[in-house]
């Protein structure tokens, strides 16, 4: 038989702790398929009402940025001060803007 020795793949688990909040990464676990990942996520990450909704994503489907390229990636935003409201001077008479 093919693949019988294949290990269960890794899944990333995201949980919405209550309505109104976003799903947040909680951790990962191994499972044979999405359905089992969902069941395991319930038992591993929500034993004490930590969530109202769970997403499971197979880890291999996530593309991550590379920290060694953080310079090219994130530094260009640093000198764009005009994207922040404090860049603009207003007369004191304008109280709220």
């Amino acid at each position, binding site marked *: 038989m093919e693949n*019988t020795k294949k290990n269960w793949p890794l899944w990333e688990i995201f949980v919405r702790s209550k309505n109104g909040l976003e799903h947040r990464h909680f*951790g*990962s*676990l191994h499972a044979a*398929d999405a359905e*089992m990942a969902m069941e395991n996520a319930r038992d591993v990450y929500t*034993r004490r009402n930590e969530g109202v909704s769970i997403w499971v994503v197979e880890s291999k489907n996530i593309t*991550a940025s590379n*920290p*060694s390229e953080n310079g090219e990636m994130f530094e260009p935003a640093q000198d764009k001060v005009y994207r922040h409201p404090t860049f603009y001077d207003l007369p004191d008479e304008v109280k709220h803007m």
Partner: protein
Amino acid sequence: MSEKEVKNLEEIFEARIARDEKIEPKDWMPEKYRQTHIRQMSQHAHSEIIGMLPEGNWITRAPSLRRKAALLAKVQDEAGHGLYLYSACETLGISRDELYEQLHSGKAKYSSIFNYPTITWADMGAIGWLVDGAAIINQVPLCNTSFGPYARAMVRVCKEESFHQRQGFEIMLTLCRGTEEQKAMAQDALNRWWWPSLMMLGPTDAESIHTEQSMKWKLKRKSNDELRQQFIDQTVPQADLLGITVPDPDLKWNEETGHYDFGEIDWDEFWQVVKGHGPCNKERMKARVDAWNNGEWVRDAAMAHAEKNEKRKVAKAS
């Protein structure tokens, strides 16, 4: 990479940790940092998994439904803690299978405390009270450790751990307020678990080979001896409250230091247990390896089922 470049990266790395920045899995890290974390985190995960065995021994014999539900929940938490820690450890590029292989072959260690037997129900009380108590003292500082995934796993573990200690103390309290025989059971459990619990906090500072480096990486924030003193200082008054006696004739309050003085720990016993000659080392490993081997067909079947379903889905779509 040249030696000079590595040295430069190492300096940047150490400076980041000194500034209390967290290290995430994909960041550059010295090989030794990676290996030390794999060793400590996997040892921690293995301890959670093996730690289910001594308590699992009493689930079917818990004296009431309330006790049984609590013990089941505690053991399930330990499985959960093992899983948080294994997956945090895997972010360092080691597979779950390799981690299990290291446990099963004896290459990786787990906490020596779990090689002692649980012979009466009072042992469930003593484990929760003392062993989980010592574990909490060890674990709380790790919520601030430098490696992000480990710190995050520990935050979750620590949140769940205090119920473990309370349920243990409640078992002890109930026994101590019961018949003479029940109180004697509680005393007997304290007699057997006290010294192993002190050993659980690790060798003395003079003997501990990893301490200095681990302090620098914030894998450790207090030395083994400091943690042990903290455990003793906090636990002795609890024993007094229970009305049972800590089995150490040299134990006494020291007005000057503001701490308890205590007797000599039998480190020969500790090293014997670490080296595999404790009362239950073989039994624990056998239970663990059997569970893994006997579950193999289930894991394979689940994988085969998943693959078949996947193929069916693809066929339907095309």
